[in-house]
């Protein structure tokens, strides 16, 4: 067996991580765009509260975020019975891992999109309204196309964040190989066992490759946005 070939557990961890990161970004995008638009363009009571709430996972210890998720969405948590009624279980499942990753990536995605929206000249939206465009039409045909690079950049950063999420994930969904074990938690487990250095190295290599790629793509998109 060559040192470069992946074991099935390792492969499962890699595919699960990719799945979790993808699902978490796709699920949080609509909400992130809405929240970013709200924060960038609207003045309302509770503006700074919403802003702080969105950014909370960025500054809280991830373990705390994971625990809060457990209290909220665990089987005996606040929303547990509701979820169970719909046949949904989040704690200790891969869906829960996606939720944890989404919550952690959300502030980064919102931030990137918000910056993009703030870079759109409100005067363009004003001009569109004098041409007969309703606010909804303006959003979809003026604002959205202009912030597309920002949305993509935010998604990439969010994807990278979700890929590397550890603290909240392991607290909320534990570390079950093949079920909730992501690259990060796999590395953590492998480090506990002597003689698994090559395994650890392979996972670390994959991590570096994915994160580095995500950052380069994000940088490329950001530069493209500036050029407009």
């Amino acid at each position: 067996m060559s040192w470069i070939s992946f074991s099935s557990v390792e492969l499962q961890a890699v595919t699960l991580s990719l799945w979790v990161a993808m699902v978490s970004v796709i699920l949080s995008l609509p909400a992130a765009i809405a929240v970013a638009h709200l924060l960038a363009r609207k003045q309302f009571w509770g503006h700074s509260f919403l802003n702080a709430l969105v950014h909370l996972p960025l500054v809280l210890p991830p373990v705390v975020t994971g625990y809060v998720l457990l209290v909220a969405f665990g089987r005996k948590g606040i929303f547990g019975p509701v979820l169970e009624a719909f046949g949904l279980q989040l704690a200790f499942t891969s869906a829960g891992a996606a939720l944890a990753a989404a919550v952690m990536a959300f502030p980064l995605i919102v931030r990137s999109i918000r910056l993009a929206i703030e870079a759109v000249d409100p005067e363009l939206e004003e001009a569109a309204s004098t041409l007969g465009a309703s606010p909804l039409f303006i959003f979809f045909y003026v604002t959205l196309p202009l912030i597309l690079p920002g949305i993509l950049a935010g998604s990439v950063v969010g994807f990278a964040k979700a890929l590397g999420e550890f603290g909240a994930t392991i607290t909320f969904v534990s570390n079950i190989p093949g079920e909730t074990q992501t690259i990060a938690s796999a590395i953590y487990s492998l480090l506990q066992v002597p003689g698994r250095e090559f395994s650890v190295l392979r996972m670390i290599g994959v991590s570096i490759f994915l994160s580095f790629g995500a950052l380069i793509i994000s940088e490329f998109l950001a530069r493209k946005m500036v050029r407009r």
Partner: protein
Amino acid sequence: MTVKLDIKLQRNKFLLNVKLKAPPGVTVIFGPSGSGKTTLLRVISGLETATQGDVSIDGVNLLGVPPHRRAVGYVFQEPRLFPHLNVLGNLKFPQRMSRGFGLQSLGEVIDLLELEPLLHCYPNVLSGGEAQRIALGRALVSNPKCLCLDEPLSALDQALKERILPYLERLKDKIQIPILYVTHDAAEMARLADNIVLMRNGSNVLSGLVDDVLSDPTAVPFLGVRSAGTVVSARVMPRDPISGLAVVSFAGGKLFLPELLQQEGSIIRIRIPAQDIILALRKPKEISALNILSGQISRIHQGQGPGVMVQFKVGKTLFLARLTQYSATRMDLKKGQNIFAIIKVSAFDPAGIGT
């Protein structure tokens, strides 16, 4: 279609208080910066809310109606083209919202403004003048019931202005809607205006037909002495064979002009600045100036400064001349007196000559 408004808008210490009527044709809103010209247009287009009073087009009240349902086209000082769309995309943008009235077709607009060669360019490669022409075209494609132009040429240099003004003059003959045109450039006003509204400190101090306002000496303080001057409608005549100069005839006589671009037989508007006219009691001889008109003083207006505005009539046409008070006293000018007006050929600014 006629725009009628009678509005009040209080913002901090500034009060906009305007009552006016803009019939089809160009109504130029003229005034110094800070007089509320732009705010007035924003009220009409619905971009400025919190207004009291009435804004209506053809009797349909617009107050409280959001901008996108007002059908008021707006061309801003900057073109505000959508950077993610090419020129054609920008022009077609209003077409996606089908406004169901008096279609001004896309093709007509492209022809009128000569946009064909630009259609596939993106806004970032356009010159200021091109971009503004497209902004104008885009506003026209939206089939507005009224068009607001907010100093559309102010960001352009004189040469570019010269190239866009003919488009505006053509547009004005072509569409029968009220066009509200904000400017602080007297030459632009003289070339485009059918009606003039003079603004000062948030109120319209004087309004009326272009000839009436510009020949009214009491309007001078609001126009600024350098902007004062009448507009004469004249027909282009055959070139003078001896001097080679262009000749135009107006109701009252003939004028020699430097080079003219307009064709023989066409009617043009010539702005004659009040400060460029010299008055004499006897017909001057042995003088270099070629335009010597015989007229009669119809009004003398004493301003607050050192100047006097003398309104005189040559045939049926009114002129304004600005003299110093000293000259007027020395010459003992009176209403009804016959005088000779002297205008240098080179006094005609080509920027003040339009169709």
